[in-house]
């Protein structure tokens, strides 16, 4: 029973915080562009509205795969978020470790790719293939950068990484700062936000893999993306800032860290043009990997 409770909590809390984060993102974007921005409840209203819209399935597509894809992605985010929540608030490791987290966090991308491929639409095929290339590109620096906290903690488990930072966070070291920068840019690509929104590229391939989605399917994908918008910064906080600390003044710090990460992501997305996919691959396999490798080497030497 506790288990069901945990999952429902994991889902509900993540969804709520994800929607709030999405509102922050949209509000900041609007302010940057001298607009007023949406009201607080707008992300939530959007999803409810989408649920009421008609479901349209492309002719000749695999109906099962097309409708299953968003759900698979949602399951991936729910699992990843539950993994983080449980290890954040309970003593002792549970369910999985750093490796599991990395693998679970690729499931949402996988679901977008599958959904795009199942749409029977050339634009979706193109967009999904770009998403796949993006995954290949950022995975290398992302693994290396998130390895730095593991090396500092000397422990693979999420709870171990959190506990071992109680006397000094990873971001307090030089290697930690470098790794944080790399990981942040990888998160930008994981969220497919500008400058790495190549898979969706509205102006050229009309939302790519999502082009055929409407109604509930799109609602689930939206929800999944909003939940990721919370889960990924949460993962970064766990890895680099010792998790959420909810005692006394630390609440303020945690909040600051979280809002800081989200604001950085939003600012990057509002001040950059979209790059091409080959530029993105070069960027991640080139400078980012070099930086991340340097961070790992520094961390192994205790700097």
């Amino acid at each position, binding site marked *: 029973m506790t*288990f069901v409770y945990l*999952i429902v909590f994991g*889902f509900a809390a993540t969804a709520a915080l994800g929607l709030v984060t999405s509102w922050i993102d949209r509000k900041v974007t609007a302010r940057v562009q001298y607009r007023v921005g949406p009201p607080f409840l707008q992300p939530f209203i959007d999803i409810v509205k*989408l*649920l009421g*819209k008609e*479901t*349209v*399935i*492309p*002719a*000749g597509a*695999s*109906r099962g*795969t097309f*409708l299953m894809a*968003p*759900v698979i992605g*949602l*399951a991936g*985010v*729910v*699992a990843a978020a*539950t993994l983080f929540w449980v290890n954040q608030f309970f003593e002792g490791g*549970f*369910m*999985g*470790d*750093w*490796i*599991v987290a990395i*693998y*679970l966090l*690729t*499931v949402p991308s*996988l679901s977008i790719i*599958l959904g795009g*491929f*199942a749409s*029977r*639409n*050339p*634009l979706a*095929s193109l967009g*999904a293939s770009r998403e796949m*290339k993006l*995954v*290949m590109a950022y*995975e*290398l620096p992302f693994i*290396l950068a998130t*390895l730095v906290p593991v090396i500092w903690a000397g422990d*693979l488990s999420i709870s171990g990484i959190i506990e071992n930072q109680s006397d000094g966070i990873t971001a307090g070291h030089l290697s930690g700062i470098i790794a944080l920068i790399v990981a942040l840019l990888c998160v930008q690509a994981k969220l497919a936000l500008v400058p790495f929104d190549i898979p969706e590229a509205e102006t050229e391939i009309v939302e790519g893999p999502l*082009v055929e989605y409407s*109604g*509930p399917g799109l*609602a*689930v994908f939206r929800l999944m993306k909003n939940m990721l918008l919370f889960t990924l910064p949460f993962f970064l906080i766990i890895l680099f800032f010792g998790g959420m600390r909810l005692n006394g003044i630390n609440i303020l710090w945690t909040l600051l860290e979280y809002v800081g990460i989200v604001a950085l992501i939003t600012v990057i997305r509002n001040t950059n043009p979209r790059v091409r996919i*080959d530029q993105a*691959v070069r960027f991640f396999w080139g400078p980012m990997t070099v930086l991340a490798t340097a961070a790992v080497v520094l961390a192994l030497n205790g700097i």
Partner: protein
Amino acid sequence: MKYLIDALKNPGGYFASTPLSVVCAVFAAMFFVFTVVYSFRHMSGRKGLWRYYIYILATFLATLGILFSANFLLLLVLWGFLGLMLYLLIGFGREEGTPESARKSLAIIGGTDVLLLLGIVLIWSIRYGSTGLPGFLRLPFAGMGIQLDTTGSVIAYLCLASAAFAKAGAMPFHTWLPDTARDAPVPVTAFLPASLDKLLGIYFLARVTLEVFVMTPAMNTVLMALGSVTIMAAVMMALVQHDLKRLLGYHAVSQVGYMVLGIGTGNPVGIAGALFHMFNNTIYKSSLFLAGGEVERRTGTSDLARLGGLVKAMPMVFAAFLIASLSISGVPPFNGFASKWMLYQGVISGGGTLWVVWLVAAMLGSALTLASFMKLVHSVFLGQPSQISREVIESREKTGFFTILPLAVLSLLCIGLGVIAWKIPFADYFRPGVGGELHMPGIWQSGPATLVLLAGLVIGYLIYLSGSIRKARIVAPFIGGETLEKNPDMRVSGVDFYRTIREIGILKVIYRLAEKKLFDLYEVLQKIAAGFGIVFSFMHNGILSRYLLWFVIGLAVLCIVLI
């Protein structure tokens, strides 16, 4: 022959059973049954089928013999016999390059059989050379504990390891595998290179590494480096393939890298992970080959550019293919993830100073595997249907029961072994001769994690139910107002999805060299041999004047030397 009869008369000195060989034998039997069942339909209409089934049976029996042999020479004889059987079975292929591929695999496997013999002789001379006991013919295959401190023992180990590498298809002896996968009949590929050869090669490598020799850190590093290179190089090649079977063949190579890497870690978790991965790999790899074979049988081609959209024609095959793809890419909670995870644990605790390198190679390798399988899923089953696919879809032929049965069982195994992974008694089965507790630094509770994932699926389903999902409308795909059917050129086949990767920096050079077969030992040796041939044919051109010239030169040299 006399030797084999002697072996059958006195099984005590020749056969022995370990838990590992029993599990391997169970798997071999399962694949034997599946191959025969699948072949009913797939091979029907070909000539000489009775020979085909006899070869398959002989292969199976020889495999059992190897798994239970306690004697090096018996093993060597059966090992060579298997190589021959593979050669004969490839001959049933109908592709253009079949004879060439069969020759290539025979040359590589036969060549390493010679190395195996050399290694066995060396072991005998190291261990019993001075006393002559217990006789070369009865050299036991266990409990040797030879130290890798002399040149002889290192060479002996490398010889035995090469034989295992060639059989399993690890680098640098892998090159027969993609060619065989392309040209041999699919059940043969699924039976030998994808499952039995993997079982045998890795089983042999594990036994040799753990029971015959005492590993040194240096040798472990060599193994881990070979494993990592195999993973990365093979998967990079797989990314740019445009033939379904050949692409799968490269993955058959890439996955061996994980096993070699795991055995190279030299610690119990890594080795147990490697052996677990070996079993998982045989499951999903045969599933992939069998599903691919069905596609090929129905469409008559394995060229990815001419396939696509087949999910409508064979939904069950697609489901099996997708499950196997997710397993091989290590998506939790499938079995491929469970064994990869164990392997990573081994690499982290036993990988030496370079553990980060091996770990990143293995983890990135699995992301690239996912990429190349997504390409396959798109180009074969999803995406926009090609002309051939349309005809197949319109023919409305049902997938046969004998095709579905193996695929269904293998898919269930992919899920089942992944979900109950943490309950499997690794200590008993996947730990040949290694002592010590299985210490796992990380956590992977596949049971609860699966429950969470299922809960996520349920939540998604509930959200769907609250929407308009039940009255869905079917509309032509939106391509800016164009119609797909009227514009066949707009079809994205997916073959060139990863051309971008190929064009990047140094990768461009490497790919070009690989396409010139510069990394193919067989081809390089062939070129060298051809080079000798040119020299000899220049010398022996059959014309008297040139022989006379050599004669005079030889005389002159003799005179100079003698004077």
